[in-house]
């Protein structure tokens, strides 16, 4: 079977099955949210930038926002007959790259991802967040294993 590596760019989401891999490269204050159904071996990855969409639940599907990105991923996974109670989540990112930048965007992003997952009843299975380092993630759909790469 031919497998694909799909790079998910900032603000996008993607869904993959079986032997495919999903990846998000060079994550700073953004968060990569990975949802996985181990029974069906399907997974989705969001490379989201900002915490809350300005008008959640009004039909806008702007996946640069964490809440709408999670909604969209769940919607897609449920069409493949995934069940919410089987889905587990992992989150990576939420750093602050410049110490002087009085920015808590990264922190807010992590918090908001956790809140949203809790609200949807999705179990958080793992996280690699915060600090001031850039990260890349690779999400292997066949196994559900998430690999985090840093410069150091």
């Amino acid at each position, binding site marked *: 079977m031919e497998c694909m590596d799909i790079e998910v760019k900032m603000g996008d989401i993607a869904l993959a099955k079986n032997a495919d891999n999903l990846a998000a490269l060079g994550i700073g*204050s953004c968060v990569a949210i990975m949802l996985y159904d181990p029974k069906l071996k399907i997974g989705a990855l969001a490379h989201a930038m900002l915490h809350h969409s300005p008008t959640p639940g009004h039909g806008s599907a702007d996946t640069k926002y964490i809440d709408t990105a999670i909604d969209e991923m769940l919607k897609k996974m449920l069409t493949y007959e995934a069940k919410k109670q089987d889905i587990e989540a992992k989150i990576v990112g939420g*750093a602050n790259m410049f110490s*002087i930048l009085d*920015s808590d*965007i990264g922190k807010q992003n992590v918090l908001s991802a956790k809140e949203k997952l809790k609200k949807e009843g999705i179990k958080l299975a793992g996280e690699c967040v915060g600090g001031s380092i850039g990260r890349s993630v690779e999400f292997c759909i066949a196994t559900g294993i998430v690999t985090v790469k840093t410069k150091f």
Partner: protein
Amino acid sequence: MEKLQEINKHGALNASRALSKLIDRPVDVRVSEARVKKVEELASIIGPEEIVVGIHLPVTGDIEGAALLIFPEETAFTLCDLLVKREPGTTRRLSGLDRSALKEVGNIISGSYLAVFSNMLQVKTIEHIPSLSFDMFGAIASQMITNFAQKAGKALVTDIEFIFKPVALKGYFFLFFLLEQIDVVLGSLENHRKLIKGSG
């Protein structure tokens, strides 16, 4: 917009002259058009996993924004050889001294660009202390992008490429300003001109 291109060109030249003086080498400069871009577009200029030095300087005053200077790893190492006066090719990691030398480069380049900018537009700009990050380009760029995307989807982004010997090494300078603020500044410039014309 025409005025902005002119400022961009002069600012870039001034900045490259300052860099050339600092490293005692000729520096070529390539200026792309100052354009209003979706801030996200910045992410595609360099590979997201490429290791770079990013120097970030907040700008306040009449107009708020930020300057970001990007040097790919090899460029940063070469700059350190030149600035700290080491044998060429010997810098392989960044010490505290190297980091502060690179921040100074950030100060000088953005200072000389902004001097032209403030002068030609008659606006006050205050440059703040630089901070440095040595990491993946994607991570550094996305931090800037998110910062701006929170306030507005679009910004005036200008990029300048510095090219210098011994081998062709590149660096990039980006300036971010929110669109509405640029409009205000350009508008006031236009009024100012009309007033002068009217009285003459």
